[in-house]
């Protein structure tokens, strides 16, 4: 049950109940989209009617990795690439927790890619919010496994030569039960998607395309934050239910957003609890035979 409501007192920030105001100002650059993703998330937490005391946010390393430090719930800033594994431990050891992994594309899809696909396969109950800014921003703009072909980065000074991961397709084919993508411009739709995903049982992934004014846009001459938002406005096509195969993002290409996957599959804890009761009851239990 939600114990905190959106604050209507005009003098204070409307999300003050869910943000660590003593940690402000945050470290994110002007024109960054991560703050918008956090705003959408806190709004979704209110709308989803979830007790914030039972929510844990787990982040990895990078710009988005700092989200854990600003949201006022139990939060964990873990090692690079490992937030999903860490969150798996929190969830399995205390299934009552609502676990949210909030991290970036490099953290979740490059160094943490293995945990991403396996958590999806297991269908662990957690929401993964993956902020994709197409680049390693915290370290100064290096190429990422999400950088579009031919885009520039400091470690692809002649243009990116590797094709990027299509995150919704990866999540879908690994077994995620809920997959959506919006940009930092689509705050209302993003909030709705996060609300829906928070109440979904199983492994849910919401990709948030975020402008990185400091590195990605600058090195690729894409203009300032406002121009990036205008680009999203003009080039995003909302196509719910689109086949995730078609969601690859090219350099300054059209970006397809929407809700692509929303299906039912027994979650890890559901399977585990059922299995456990069967094992305990079953005569096949090898320990039972010994009468231990």
């Amino acid at each position, binding site marked *: 049950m939600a114990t905190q409501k959106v604050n209507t007192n005009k003098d204070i920030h409307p999300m003050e109940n869910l943000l660590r105001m003593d940690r402000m100002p945050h470290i994110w650059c002007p024109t960054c989209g991560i703050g918008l993703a956090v705003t959408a998330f806190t709004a979704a937490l209110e709308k989803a009617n979830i007790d914030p005391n039972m929510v844990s946010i787990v982040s990895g390393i990078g710009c988005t990795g700092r989200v854990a430090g600003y949201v006022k719930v*139990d939060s964990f800033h873990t090692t690079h690439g490992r937030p999903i594994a860490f969150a798996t*431990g929190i*969830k399995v050891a205390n299934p009552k927790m609502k676990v949210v992994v909030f991290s970036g594309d490099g953290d979740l899809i490059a160094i943490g890619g*293995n945990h991403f696909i396996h958590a999806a396969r297991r269908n662990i109950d957690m929401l993964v919010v993956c902020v994709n800014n197409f680049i390693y921003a915290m370290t100064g703009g290096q190429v990422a496994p999400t950088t579009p072909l031919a885009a520039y980065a400091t470690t692809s000074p002649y243009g990116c030569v590797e094709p990027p991961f299509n995150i919704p397709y990866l999540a879908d084919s690994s077994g995620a039960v809920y997959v959506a993508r919006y940009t930092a411009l689509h705050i209302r739709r993003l909030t709705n998607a996060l609300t829906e995903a928070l109440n979904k049982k199983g492994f849910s992934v919401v990709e948030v395309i975020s402008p990185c004014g400091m590195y990605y846009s600058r090195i690729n001459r894409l203009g300032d934050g406002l121009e990036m938002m205008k680009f999203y406005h003009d080039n995003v096509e909302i196509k719910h239910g689109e086949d995730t195969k078609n969601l690859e993002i090219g350099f300054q290409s059209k970006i397809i957003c929407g809700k692509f996957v929303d299906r039912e599959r027994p979650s890890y804890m559901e399977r585990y609890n059922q299995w456990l009761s069967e094992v305990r009851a079953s005569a096949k239990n090898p320990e039972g035979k010994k009468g231990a």
Partner: protein
Amino acid sequence: MKADQKSVLTGVYYIDGDVAAGYGALAAGCKFVAGYPITPSTEAFEAVCHRGPKVGTVFIQMEDELGSISAILGAVWSGVKTMTITSGPGYSLMQEAIGFGAMLETPFVLLNIQRGGPSTGVPTKTGQADMMQSRWGSHGDYEVIAIAPDSPQEMFDYTIKAFNLAEKYRCPVMIMSDECVGHMTEKVVIPDADKIYVEPRRFYTGPAADYRPYKPDPDLVPKMAKAGEGLNLYITGIVHDENGYPVSDEKYKSIYVKRLVDKIRLNKNEIIELKEEGTDGADVIVVSYGISSRVAVKGVEMARQKGVKVGTLRLVTVWPFPDDRINELAKKTKAFVVPEINYGQVVYDVARCAHGHASVVLVPHGGAGVHNPDDVADAIEFAVKQEKPLEGVHEFKTRLEKSVFEGGFKLKE
């Protein structure tokens, strides 16, 4: 507090060290185990998977060792006791997260059944060459506790002790066993639960508003909390202040990181456990740990038959190192003989503490086997004959090395 009878498999068993360690973890109240199969530690993980569901211990086989150790760290913050189990290559993969666990002051137990290295090494045979890695393997300054059991019974007993130490000092505790002890099958007696002491977690119980996650108690260890209690924990691997908030100036770095090492160093007399026999008036003291201490017994016996006054000092806890005791003994004895299954690791700490007062003789072994007791006996006789302390660490040439290297490798002139 006493162990929970449900998780103590009271009885007399004939089991190997790996399985005994698994049963020890259950008895200690371990409620979450994440692992990844790796020889020769797999039997311990299998024992937990087999017995765990019956006693309420959850296990998960993760996709790799990075995932295993990250998952157990997460589970600790859900309020339970946890362990992971590994060997050689898996242990290397876990190093980053070991430092992370030390930084978060997360109590956990890591069972390392050492095998022959480096790299894939000799997966199915023994080694003791991860000892320094257990102390310094992750980047940055931190201290851990490492225990080296030498029998299946001790694998049971000291796994429980490892959990108790982890809770008491909120640090990583490594059980640095080895393939020989892990696969050695002996009688193991598991007592009644009321005979087993289990250290409870030092949970914070005061008002939520006053909670400071890293405010230390007088013994330098802070109170622990868990997720889901409305404390709005912020737990980070970045250097942090008492609130857990990131700080980067040198003042906090020295205050916080110094406490991480000092909470072990200043409490070391409480932590260290040694088993000494005949060290009073001994001319030579054999310092050993794990399987090497079992093998050394025979060598000591042979040397004693030849009239040498030999004592033994067994490092049950290897880290923190018993600096003071070794230094005290160095002033009274002629030499330390250190058999270990590596080319010199713990022996350098013995030499550091001997400080030139006594000879320090390493009896090395490359792994994939254990020492020949004759070598230990010969090294004792060699050491006792020295007129004055040898310089540095003297590497004793073993029969095996003489037979395969003809007296050792030499660079061509």
